């Protein structure tokens, strides 16, 4: 009977650690055996506030890393930007506080069956899920090059331990405060050629993903990206989180990014359809 959300569980879990890292908070949750079921690209939906809160919806966060070993049993780690009320509430949690989660949710990054040269492109906190992905790719024999971009240095998330599994890391900032001044897409073409990249993985703001996808098309490379749409439920029941995706049958459908995503094939997305339903979408 369970063909959707097959591994998802709702649980009260303990906060094991919460550290400020640049503009973000690195948060570790003790999730027990949920960690085993988690794949790079999956996300977690977290209740924010308490019984008196006026925020009734969960917040979605990409899972930065999942680990099923270790002192506290299974853990998942998040990289959270204090943005509005809910994410700031989460960033204010202290060790031993408990939060209610539903995880793991959504699709994960597809892992090639053979070793490849992979280029991972992350924007802001979008870098987070790429480190877990890098570990998997590395352990499977792939080459991993990474580009991390943000507006300013503090918004680049690039922890030292994350670099273990990465062959090269290139940083870009729009203000030049660290790395190369410019955007991730400015440095992509040269790196693709240099490292003979065969597949691109990306995660970050939609506009960045769109630009990355254009380069992927130009070089005719596979491109898997993790999209971000406003989500009310995270489990596929509300239809708020849709993006226009072209199916195998060639038809464009408004598809739920929480179930059919967040990781989708860049070539399947009808890009640039902000605040509109693209022409030709089924049922428009």
């Amino acid at each position: 009977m369970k063909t959707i959300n097959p591994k998802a569980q709702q649980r009260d879990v303990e906060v094991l650690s919460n550290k400020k890292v640049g503009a973000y908070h690195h948060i570790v949750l003790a999730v027990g055996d949920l960690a085993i079921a988690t794949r790079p690209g999956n996300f977690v939906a977290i209740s924010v506030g308490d019984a008196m809160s006026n925020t009734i919806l969960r917040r979605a966060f990409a899972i930065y890393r999942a680990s099923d070993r270790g002192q506290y049993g299974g853990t998942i780690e998040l990289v959270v930007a204090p943005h509005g009320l809910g994410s700031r509430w989460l960033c204010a949690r202290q060790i031993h506080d408990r939060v209610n989660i539903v995880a793991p949710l959504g699709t994960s990054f597809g892992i090639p069956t053979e070793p490849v040269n992979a280029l991972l492109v992350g924007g802001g906190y979008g870098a987070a899920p790429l480190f877990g992905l890098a570990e998997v790719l590395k352990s499977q024999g792939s080459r991993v090059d990474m580009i991390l971009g943000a507006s300013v240095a503090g918004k680049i998330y690039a922890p030292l331990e994350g670099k273990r599994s990465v062959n090269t890391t290139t940083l870009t900032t729009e203000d030049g405060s660290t790395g190369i001044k410019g955007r991730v897409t400015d440095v992509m073409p040269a790196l693709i050629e240099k490292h003979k990249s065969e597949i691109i993985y990306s995660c970050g703001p939609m506009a960045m993903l769109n630009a990355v996808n254009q380069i992927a098309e130009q070089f005719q490379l596979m491109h898997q990206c993790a999209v971000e749409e406003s989500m009310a439920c995270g489990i596929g029941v509300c239809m708020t989180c849709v993006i226009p995706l072209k199916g195998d049958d060639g038809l464009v459908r408004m598809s739920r990014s929480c179930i059919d995503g967040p990781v989708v094939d860049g070539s399947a997305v009808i890009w640039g359809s902000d605040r509109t339903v693209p022409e030709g979408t089924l049922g428009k």
Partner: protein
Amino acid sequence: MNETFKAFDFRTRFGSITFPSPIFTASGCAGSGKELSQFFSLDELGAIVTKSIAVKPRSGRATPRMAETPSGMLNSIGLQGPGIDQFLEIDIPWLISRNVRTIVSISGETVEEYATLARKLRSVSGLSGIEVNISCPNVENRGMVFACDPIASREVIQVVRRNLGNDLPIIAKLSPDVTDLVSIAHGVVDAGANGLALINTLLGMVIDIDARRPKLAGKTGGLSGPAIRPVAVRAIYQVHAALPQIPILGMGGVASGRDALELIFAGASGVSIGTATFGDPGAPLRIKRELEIALKERGFSSFADAVGAAHES
């Protein structure tokens, strides 16, 4: 038999059908059922009310489709769905084969579309009822929502009854955004509705003050969640006072067993859980359990005794 161990009599009736539990899902808030089945067993509920289905596939509106509001949310899904044919081919068989009691919600843009939907559903076996969502824009009348127009509301229910036959209960789902809800309720009951679903969302809007435009791509959206519960309670109370024989499926901001009890005391014979499921996938089952405790604590031995209890004093 020891009273303590006797199962609580949770049965409730809409038209000819008896449901073993008074907790239902709300249309559009439980996907196709499958999505929730990971979190609890669907047959614990009175029934799954499916997302309103149209004759043809519908893409729905562009995104953003949602905005959180104080103790509520706006949605503007635009009735996205695969169309009745695919729905009957894929979603319904899945539910029926798993013995999930199912109420199909239907929506049309013309009276004729409602007739078509009812005809197609007439021959489907295993259903427990039809919820007629008349909070849809009527393209034949300047896009005015059916549920806001007493004559159009009546007409829709008439053609649904005529085309569906007399076996399945028809529950007419009304909008609170009207001047005189009771007269609309009277109209649809006269036209053949066996029950009423109260309430659909309130029309609302959020403005993104940084982008200086409505936050939702569709500009307006439907307001749901605890914020609207007082409006739901009022609507149910008023309609139950006017039409005490007609069972009401109540909904609007129910997030706990106590909330459900409020709607029941106001006159609801069943309670649908909508937005609460987004914050807590297990909400329908949790609320059912909390309701059972709340009823027992208050000395009720059967659910039916509690319906409308706030009218007695």
